[in-house]
């Protein structure tokens, strides 16, 4: 896969770079090595570098959040005091919740994988507003610092939901934590805004809405939620801070406020937020399963539109968090009925993924293993959601460990598993290096076992009436808690293993192929790691995102796929002559892009045919 570039004035560095040498040269001049020095990373406008910086930041936060989780599980190993007193325990589970939700899983897939892959899948050079993208990352760092400030002062002990009047009357540092979440809200809005404009305006010629990869559909749906829901979180947290500072009496009942109104404000954001967490995971799985089954996705339209359906319906259901909070019966009925509507698009996705695997050629590499793990774990998570959506059942199960198990199955089992699958899938593209496949498969198994061992006992605990956020519990629940704590440590071990072999892979030589998995979306037409400008011109798209599997053949020494050479036609450019004419006069397809040279060409003779003369303007 060659990529020859022409002279162009690179706006990033302001100086025009001479025409870099061809194939291997392009790879040495990748986005990682294009600029040197810390400043070139901190003030970069390149979406790929921003994606990598998000990866480092989010993974550090994930480590901190994970350590807190292990501390909580150790405390709960024995009834009564094991490690810490009640106040510290409350602060720990609040921080575990706040860090995991606001710092890790909401930015998670969109900010890391989305930032890295979206422009490349669009055949674009960058997202629509690169500076806004950088501002989003800096706001993430600022928000994280505020959470650290809250930790340093005296960590908030209100739970990540900050329910009033507890949050307005406790003496712990609630304001830094809420202000941190407020800033992280803007970081999320900017990412969403960027993705919507990019998908609308930067699509290459020929890529209509139904020729877009499903990962972009899911990022589009997520961006809609981020843009429409996060502002309400902003105003809620501002009101909470004002309530603490000036006793404005909106949420504090002693001053005429209404705590249930706070719950409405909070959950109006927080339920769509759980779809911000899971919809990108659907997108990643919709990319992995067809690529590793070597077969076109089944029911593309249904999957694409079901992402949108989930995004829109997500705004009508927030009341199912409040069935036992004093919410009226009428509102409860409305919310419960609408909650069940969301189960349908989710079920469609699962059935379509399984139908994709039917009669495919399935390769069980690590990304596919994570996808299969996702299918099992997410189905359990989704179905237990139906328990909690049923009003009479929720009365018993609300605020018990059943809820804790449900959302960990969906977030931990859903988002984080899909994130790891996506990370392994795009790792060669990100760093140009492959990871140790055997170790990766073992780690996937360990994570899968740890996950189920940690959270399945919690379903039983919850059903038997163990309330959540309990520092101490009745002796009858002991052995289930111990089972769960052991599972938590296995899960932690799985993540440590993953981190070790992934970081170790960074020291390997840059020898990853441009298309190691034989996928047919645009980012795989670029070398690994890709040049800083991605495509010189937008590639012309003539087929769906999952149509090209039979035209790619695996080259052993390259460890990757290349287009199948057509003998005799046009020097093996892979397109029969009659097709070429038909393409040339396509009216300029939507996406408002100029048809232009596609730097991609057949490996054998591309150097001569598309080499640009040096004196290009």
């Amino acid at each position, binding site marked *: 896969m060659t990529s020859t570039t022409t002279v162009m004035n690179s706006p990033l560095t302001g100086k025009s770079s001479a025409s870099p040498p061809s194939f291997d040269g392009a790879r040495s001049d990748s986005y990682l090595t294009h600029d040197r020095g810390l400043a070139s990373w901190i003030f970069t406008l390149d979406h790929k570098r921003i994606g990598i910086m998000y990866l480092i930041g989010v993974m550090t936060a994930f480590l901190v959040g994970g350590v807190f989780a292990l501390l909580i599980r150790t405390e709960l190993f024995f009834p009564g005091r094991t490690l810490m007193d009640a106040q510290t325990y409350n602060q720990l589970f609040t921080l575990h919740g706040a860090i995991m939700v606001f710092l890790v899983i909401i930015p998670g897939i969109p900010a890391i994988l989305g930032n890295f892959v979206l422009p490349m899948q669009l055949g674009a050079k*960058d997202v629509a507003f*690169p500076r806004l993208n950088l501002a989003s990352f800096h706001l993430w760092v600022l928000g994280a610092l505020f959470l650290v400030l809250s930790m340093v002062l005296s960590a908030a002990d209100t739970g990540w939901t900050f329910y009033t009047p507890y949050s307005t009357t406790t003496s712990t540092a609630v304001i830094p934590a809420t202000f941190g979440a407020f800033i992280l809200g803007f970081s999320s809005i900017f990412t969403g805004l960027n993705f919507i404009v990019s998908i609308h305006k930067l699509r290459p010629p020929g890529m209509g809405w139904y020729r877009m990869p499903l990962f972009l559909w899911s990022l589009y749906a997520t961006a809609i939620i981020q843009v429409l829901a996060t502002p309400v979180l902003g105003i809620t947290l501002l009101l909470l801070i004002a309530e*603490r500072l000036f006793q404005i009496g909106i949420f504090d009942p002693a001053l005429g406020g209404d705590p249930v109104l706070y719950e409405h404000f909070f959950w109006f954001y927080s339920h769509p937020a759980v779809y911000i967490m899971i919809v990108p995971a659907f997108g990643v799985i919709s990319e992995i399963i067809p690529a590793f089954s070597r077969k076109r996705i089944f029911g593309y339209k249904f999957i694409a539109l079901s992402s949108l359906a989930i995004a829109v319906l997500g705004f009508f259901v927030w009341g199912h968090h409040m069935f036992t909070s004093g919410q009226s019966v009428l509102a409860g009925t409305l919310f419960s009925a609408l909650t069940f509507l969301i189960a349908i698009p989710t079920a469609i996705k699962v059935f379509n993924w399984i139908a994709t695997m039917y009669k495919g050629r399935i390769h069980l590499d690590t990304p596919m293993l994570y996808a299969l793990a996702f299918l099992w774990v997410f189905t359990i998570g989704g179905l237990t959601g139906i328990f909690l959506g049923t009003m009479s059942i929720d009365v018993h199960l609300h605020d018990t460990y059943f809820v804790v198990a449900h959302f960990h199955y969906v977030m931990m089992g859903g988002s984080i598993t899909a994130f790891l699958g996506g990370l392994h899938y795009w790792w060669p593209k990100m760093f140009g290096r492959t990871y140790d496949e055997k170790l990766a498969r073992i780690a996937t198994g360990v994570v899968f076992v740890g996950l189920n061992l940690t959270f399945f006992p919690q379903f039983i605990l919850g059903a038997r009436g163990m309330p959540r956020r309990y520092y101490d519990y009745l002796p009858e629940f002991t052995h289930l808690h111990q089972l769960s704590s052991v599972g938590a440590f296995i899960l932690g071990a799985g993540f440590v293993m993953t981190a070790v072999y992934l970081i170790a892979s960074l020291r390997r030589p840059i020898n990853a192929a441009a298309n190691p998995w034989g996928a047919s979306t645009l980012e795989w037409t670029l070398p690994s790691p890709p040049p800083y400008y991605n495509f010189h011109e937008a590639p012309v798209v*003539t087929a769906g995102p999952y149509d090209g599997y039979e035209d790619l053949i695996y080259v052993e020494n390259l460890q990757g796929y290349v287009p199948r050479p057509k003998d005799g036609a046009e020097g093996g450019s892979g397109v029969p002559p009659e097709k070429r004419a038909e393409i040339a006069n396509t009216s300029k397809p939507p996406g408002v892009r100029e048809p232009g040279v596609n730097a991609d060409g057949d490996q054998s003779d591309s150097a001569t045919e598309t080499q640009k003369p040096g004196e290009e303007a």
Partner: protein
Amino acid sequence: MSQTIVTPIGANAESEHLDAIHQENPHLAHHYDTPRHQYEAGKLGIWIFLVTEILFFAGLFCAYTIYRTERPEVFNWGHQFLDWRLGGLNTIILLTSSLTAAWAVRCAQIGYRRALIVNIVATIALAFGFLGIKYVEYSHKFHEGLLPGHHFAPSEEAWEIESFRAKHPHAADLAEALEAYQASREKAEKSGKAHHDAKAVEGQIAPVVPSRLRELLRNPEATQPLVDIGAIRNPEVEPQEGLLRPKYAHVFFSIYFFMTGLHGIHVIAGIIVWIWLLRRTIAGHFGPKFFGPIDFGALYWHLVDLIWIFLFPLLYLVS
């Protein structure tokens, strides 16, 4: 073949043309093809940002609506202290600044640089005017102690505050008559005689202010400094029974200050944007080929005006 295919015929001319466009338009970012493409992307971007602003204020409008429907007496009492004349003047000022903003966009599109500068300066001046009037209103409220939360200690008896007196001119003299009536009633009860002739007086004005508040109002430092005393509930905030004020009257001023304050912050942000645009206009960046930022700055400004258009009747007019 994978999703992409190779060169359509005659592509070389296209890519030369592409680079030519980039040479002509210095402000055209490398990942856009034409100025129109960059402009439309920017327009879509600013509209999405305006959507987030609308939803940001949605929270406040929701809090307003809920407290208005459930505690109308608080709003009826509270809004008497807002001077609709100042609010009206502010609305006119913001509408004019919207006009000058729209005019600025027109001048940028046509390329009249001097007129563009005049319009931007006018918009900034009007914005400062708006903030000036806001300052007058706020200082008036600070002076009278009509502040949110535990600072809520009206510094004069309810009916002596001039804006209240402006609405109820007869209130003051009624107050003395009522106090005299109360005193005579107590004397009468002591001596066992019934008292029935003063129903009209009592009906118009609420019962007398208890002595405890009178002594609280006397000391000037009733308004404590703004400090995070989340942990310690201040007794003064406990609503005073039997006062002319309804219970939880301070909630009105909480909503008033939060809404107009947040709107004021957006006006200040708007001023900063306009000053930045003014600097770039003077530097000669904007012309018929590149006027995006002016258009988007004006769109944001129109939204700030739009929010005030709804704030004005909701807070100042509705009785």
